């Protein structure tokens, strides 16, 4: 029988190591990728993943199933950790300076690593409030509701930020093409 995240968390908080390990293995990838796509740093992503699960052990009793999934609770923790790191290194966001292909060519080139890295840099250059909804909804496939729970904001805010974030992203990629 496959236990839900909530059941695993409950058992882990009661001291079950197997449950903790299972929950970690199930959710670490998403947390790691979220931190990586938010910061562009594998070192920070590693730290954030570790700290997020430690925080889950410490504050897991605060989890309320009625307010969202365990995954969104974890993303919420990871998001706070990421934001703290970003605050500590203001201006460290990557700016797009390289020339990249235009929209039509971009589609054709997406299989190439360089193009993907250019998209990554464009995402990283977004302001954090727009970046986090793009990362959660477009890159992590979170639902609007889960993203709202993770970001502690209304679903409508997620929708509007997502829309604005995508528009900014389109401009950035197009702008780069015109350089």
């Amino acid at each position: 029988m496959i236990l839900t995240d909530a059941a695993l968390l409950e058992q882990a908080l009661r001291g079950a190591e197997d449950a903790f390990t299972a929950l970690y293995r199930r959710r670490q990838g998403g947390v790691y990728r979220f931190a990586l796509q938010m910061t562009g740093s594998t070192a920070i992503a590693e730290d954030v993943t570790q700290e997020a699960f430690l925080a889950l052990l410490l504050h897991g009793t605060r989890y309320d199933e009625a307010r969202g999934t365990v995954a969104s609770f974890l993303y919420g923790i990871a998001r706070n950790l990421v934001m703290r790191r970003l605050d500590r290194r203001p201006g460290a966001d990557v700016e797009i300076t390289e020339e990249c292909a235009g929209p039509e060519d971009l589609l054709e080139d997406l299989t190439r690593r360089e193009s993907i890295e250019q998209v990554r840099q464009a995402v990283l250059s977004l302001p954090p409030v727009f970046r986090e909804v793009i990362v959660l909804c477009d890159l992590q496939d979170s639902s609007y509701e889960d993203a709202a729970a993770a970001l502690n904001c209304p679903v409508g805010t997620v929708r509007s930020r997502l829309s604005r974030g995508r528009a900014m992203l389109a401009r950035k990629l197009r702008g780069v093409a015109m350089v």
Partner: protein
Amino acid sequence: MKSGDWVGTALRSLAEHDREREAPEEVEPRLVAAFRRRRARWKTKTVVLATLGVAAAITLFLARPQPKPKQVVPMPVREQPIAVAAAPAPMPMPVQEVTPQARQVKRQPREVVTQFFPLLDVAPPFERGELLRVTVPASTMRSVGLPVNEDHLTDRVYADVLVGQEGLARAIRFVSYEQ
């Protein structure tokens, strides 16, 4: 192609590219080690404090004060003496007036309590519990960071222990009395 379409495609490509990315393998053993340390600390603390709480509760139960005799409010002496046949006339007795001050119940000392100090690092969800008034050595106050004079470490102090539905002592607060 609409800009939203190619931005969506670009983001999906990035998501697909990152899909296999996970936290480095060394994170898991570090977290498991941290989990075990926390669990060991939690177990030790729980056993010690539960034992302390139960022992204190038993001590308190055995040493509980016996019920005091009911306070008798002095009644005013009847002015009309009871006539007894063939008996000498009774001596006039002074009438004892009961003043409002005399009627006042003796003021109880005021109870002063500290904040609650958590006893468990990771507590299972709280459903219901009981507050037990116990006596503990003053040294217990030190264990939660309260200052205690060296000369009074073995003195007994009153404390309220919050015991959860599963019998674990979850929190403690200390009680003193002010006149």
